[in-house]
């Protein structure tokens, strides 16, 4: 303790390799942490693939649920997930981007805007089951939507809205000021500037946020069960008012069955959900790259 007094250590004589030892240690630590995270993911993927790959087949993708695990398929859940997430995006994008544009470009920066900002950030952390209860009371009962695709999509749209607003605002904030000023200098109005300069420049960031939000929504079970999404639906959703089920609910149901064959179905279902998620991400990346290239 005592011999560690500053006078005992003449700092200038520390050789460079010692001076960088902290750097190297932190780098090593970071690598270790990353490998650990990746290993957990790899173990999960390996486990799921080993259990589920044998069940993945065209028959599995195109069949309806059944009490016999070998005959059961995922079609209504897959169609339900795609349909519900699609409508969710249709609702959440205009509302979320619109709200973000207003807050970022039009709203006067004052106490009120800070209050709104804090509240939106808080909403992003509300447990999803709460949105489910809200959806049940508001959309299913008061608005009379029933246990429909539309009610499910509206509920999920509410759930993702805070994330969409926050990421869109950040993307808008990242647009360089010079771009706006150049547009104004050419005589463009505020809306023309937003429409032709700011939004296209912010698009990559907006899309990233949207995909993150929708990726959360596609894995949600609790709010959809609360609003009355079903488990056994032997037909495809054929409209906004149709009853529906989604992948996570079907997977959850199979996991909790006593027969081991249903556990394999659940693993195969998880693989389908993963592929759907990756496909969504891929579409977003392609669209984002196209816009990014155009913007340059």
């Amino acid at each position, binding site marked *: 303790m005592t011999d560690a007094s500053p006078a005992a250590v003449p700092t200038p004589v520390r050789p460079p390799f010692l001076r960088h030892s902290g750097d190297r240690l932190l780098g090593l630590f970071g690598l270790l942490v990353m490998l650990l995270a990746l290993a957990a993911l790899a173990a999960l993927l390996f486990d799921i693939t080993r259990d589920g790959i044998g069940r993945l087949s065209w028959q599995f993708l195109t069949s309806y649920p059944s009490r016999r695990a070998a005959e059961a398929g995922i079609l209504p859940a897959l169609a339900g997930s*795609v349909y519900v997430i699609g409508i969710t995006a249709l609702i959440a994008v205009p509302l979320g*981007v619109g709200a973000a544009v207003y807050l970022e470009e039009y709203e006067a920066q004052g106490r009120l805007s800070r209050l709104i900002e804090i509240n939106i950030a808080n909403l992003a952390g509300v447990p999803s089951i709460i949105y489910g209860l809200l959806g049940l009371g508001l959309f299913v009962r008061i608005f009379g939507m029933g246990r429909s695709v539309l009610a499910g999509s509206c509920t999920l749209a509410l759930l993702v809205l805070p994330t969409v607003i926050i990421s869109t605002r950040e993307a808008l904030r990242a647009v360089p000021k010079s771009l706006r000023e150049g547009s104004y200098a050419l005589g463009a109005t505020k809306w023309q500037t937003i429409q*032709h300069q700011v939004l296209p420049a912010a698009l990559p960031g907006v899309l990233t946020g949207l995909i993150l939000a929708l990726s959360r929504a596609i894995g949600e079970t609790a709010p959809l069960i609360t609003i009355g999404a079903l488990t*056994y639906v032997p037909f495809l959703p054929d409209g906004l008012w149709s*009853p529906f089920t989604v992948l996570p609910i079907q997977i959850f149901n199979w996991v909790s069955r006593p027969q081991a064959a249903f556990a394999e179905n659940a693993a195969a279902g998880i693989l389908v959900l993963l592929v759907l998620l990756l496909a969504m991400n891929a579409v977003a990346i392609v669209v984002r790259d196209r816009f990014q290239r155009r913007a340059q």
Partner: protein
Amino acid sequence: MSQTHRTRAGWAPHAGWTRSLPGTAGVLVWTMVVAACGGGQTPGAAGGPAGDTVIRIDGSSTVFPVTEAVAEEFQKANPGARVTVGISGTGGGFQKFCRDEIDLADASRPISASEKDACQATGVDYIELPVAYDGLAVVVNPKNSWAASMTVAELKKLWEPAAQGKVMRWNQIRDGWPDREIHLFGPGVDSGTFDYFTEAIMGKADESRGDYTSSEDDNVIVQGISGDEFALGYFGFAYYEENAGKLKLVPVDDGNEANGAGPILPSPETVKNGSYAPLSRPIFVYPKVKALDRPEVRSFVDFYLTQGVPLVREVGYIPLSDREYELVRGRFTAKQVGSMYQGTESHSSVSLEQRLAQ
């Protein structure tokens, strides 16, 4: 340079407008996805608005496998029929049922007093139809050589709230059992299995110690017990049957000689004849009387009580006796409204057949 170019393009009517609005672009992509999905529907799914022809069922996840199997076969026999089944839980199902939102409620326990009131308030009349038995299995690890049977009193001593933090070793339950720590596994408090076990053993629903490993997924409990020599737990009989090699059943003695003397092992026979008491229970469907005016609902319930019977065993549950099914069908055809149970009264004291015959 490229900036100016883009701005100029933007001023052209229409073309630039859609391109420069990111929201619109996202919307377009998703419209295509949704359109593609909407185009892939089956011909049978087309036709009038959903609410009219769909038979809507919701409720207990315990009853779900039976109802799913019946719905599957019913639709094979009646192409074009549309049956949907949800798993909101028995309570959630009755809530929707009494709000007149569904046609049938699946229930792993009889309708409660407050649910009766709720149904009465909205004028929803129902018929109570037991459709199968579900047994609860008390299980230990196969290496457990001592727990050859347990009495209801011993189970109560082990699981009652007062045991929390106190009854921790096997030899505290019965002298002569090893002086080793006991590891308890059971369903979570939201499950109907938990409700029923606590009611049957403690005499009051939801009375239980809390210091045990709980899971809403019975498969997790199976895994826990199969890997631990000093474990004990309970769950639905179907889960035991699927994992019989990894577990050992504990016969239960209810001290009542009238329904079979001594400890009784759960099996389809002992559950059905009522000797495996008190851990066997009937499970129910509750059709809404008003919905029975619709021919498809009437024929579905009829199918459930006739062609549905062989499916019960197939999905892991235990069918009622032939005599009991006959009585249940009688209830249905006579449209006998209301419940056989007086609120929360324990339904293990009187046999189902006696009740049905009343």
